[in-house]
């Protein structure tokens, strides 16, 4: 029997299995176990959560393979890991570790300020961030099998996640109402491959699964993003920088499933302890923002 691995269908397929779920940032095997126990559909293995990367500054790179392997051994759910934008060697290393998904992430310091990784060259699938439809379709054009609308990671402020989800989903709605002869000019304007613009219009959604990320800190934040129309959520610093990570993690998982049921959302939001402290983005200097990384 002939079998084929690494097809776009199986890359995109794993993201489809994550839908309706919560992917949690973890920095130790113990945290990974807490995340799995709380019902996470996957974990993101990294050395420092975005809030600490912000606080400590310096160059943020791919995590130590030893740490990633330790986390992989601790859980049965998929494990993702981040590489720097354009750093295809970090990606090769992560692929050799048999990581389940690579996040080519603006949370780390970019290695290339012009080019992203050619993700079609890999068997392992990639997820990338986007702020608008053009950025999303450029990443998919390079081979990304999953997208996440960017928020401002490590702030606990959901405003940027909302802005970018609204932008991407709004542009898709606009695209659907556009006469076909205007698609080429639209593709040119947003800097996206024409074929993917056309496919998005026909589907009425991005051609791959699209999660929200960055600044999600409460069950209500997760449900807000779901009601806006994303397929699932990433929660970074919001869980393990809060007072009671296990409880908050389980509550965000429940809120992501029952995102339209306000009574359940009220119930799961009770007595979660201290949320992460958070930083108000409107008072943040432009130079400190990371969502703008990506080209």
């Amino acid at each position, binding site marked *: 029997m002939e079998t084929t691995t690494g097809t776009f*269908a199986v890359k995109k397929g*794993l993201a489809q299995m994550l839908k309706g779920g919560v992917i949690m940032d973890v920095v130790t095997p113990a945290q990974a176990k807490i995340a799995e126990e709380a019902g996470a559909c996957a974990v993101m293995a990294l050395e420092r959560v975005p809030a600490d990367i912000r606080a400590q500054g310096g160059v943020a790179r791919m995590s130590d393979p030893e740490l990633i392997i330790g986390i992989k051994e601790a859980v049965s759910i998929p494990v993702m890991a981040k590489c720097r934008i354009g750093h295809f060697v970090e990606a090769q290393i992560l692929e050799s570790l048999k990581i389940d998904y690579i996040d080519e992430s603006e949370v780390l310091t970019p290695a290339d300020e012009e080019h992203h990784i050619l993700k079609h060259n890999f068997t392992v699938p990639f997820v990338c961030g986007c702020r608008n439809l053009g950025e999303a379709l450029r990443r998919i054009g390079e081979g990304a099998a999953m997208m996440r609308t960017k928020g401002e990671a490590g702030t606990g402020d959901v405003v940027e996640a909302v802005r970018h989800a609204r932008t991407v989903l709004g542009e898709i709605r606009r695209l659907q109402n556009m006469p076909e002869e205007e698609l080429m000019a639209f593709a040119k304007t947003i800097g996206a491959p024409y074929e993917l613009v056309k496919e998005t219009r026909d589907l009425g959604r991005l051609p791959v699964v699209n999660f929200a990320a960055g600044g999600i800190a409460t069950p209500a934040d997760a449900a807000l993003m779901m009601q806006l129309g994303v397929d699932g959520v990433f929660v970074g610093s919001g869980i393990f920088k809060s007072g009671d990570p296990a409880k908050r993690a389980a509550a965000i998982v*429940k809120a992501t499933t029952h995102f339209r049921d306000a009574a359940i959302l009220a119930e799961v939001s009770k007595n979660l302890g201290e949320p992460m402290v958070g930083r108000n983005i409107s008072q943040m200097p432009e130079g400190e923002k990371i969502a703008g990384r990506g080209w």
Partner: protein
Amino acid sequence: MKIGVLALQGDFSEHIVMLRRIGIESSEVRLPAHLEGLNGLIMPGGESTTIGKLAVAFGLIEPLREFGKSRAIWGTCAGAIFLSKDAKRDQPLLSLMDITVERNAFGAQVDSFEADLEIDALKEATGSNNPYHAVFIRAPIIESVRGAARVLSALPDGRIVAAQENKLLATSFHPELTNDSRFHEYFLAMCR
């Protein structure tokens, strides 16, 4: 005919799209009350631990077991694990179907694959002789079947990837990720 799709987590909307395509009404099941009036239930792919924990948290385990005593249930991938009596580790299961499954039996995501299967039961039921193109994503295998459970499909090396026990159906792969509706039609016949 109305089919429910367990919508706790996973690719439930892909099943709903496929059912709509073949003209079947469906609804999302997140709470026990949503099982009312259904002729059958599909449990999608996703993470079986996540689905199991949410089913426990929202009181779905016993209602689903009751449902499965008289009506048809089909589990794809994570859904098949959830349907089984034994997943060889400690996680919530419906324990309805007399099969043992092994999770992630093919390895990591880089080992996920597509392959053409020859499935006699499907050929007989649908009258189509084309091979079945199956998509395996971090897939489980059905390690063994017991009692009334029988093998529907196995890989050339003998590993079981589809099984049926009366009105219960389990597949390691994802018919909802293809354009081929034969497996959905096969399941609908079980619901009638």
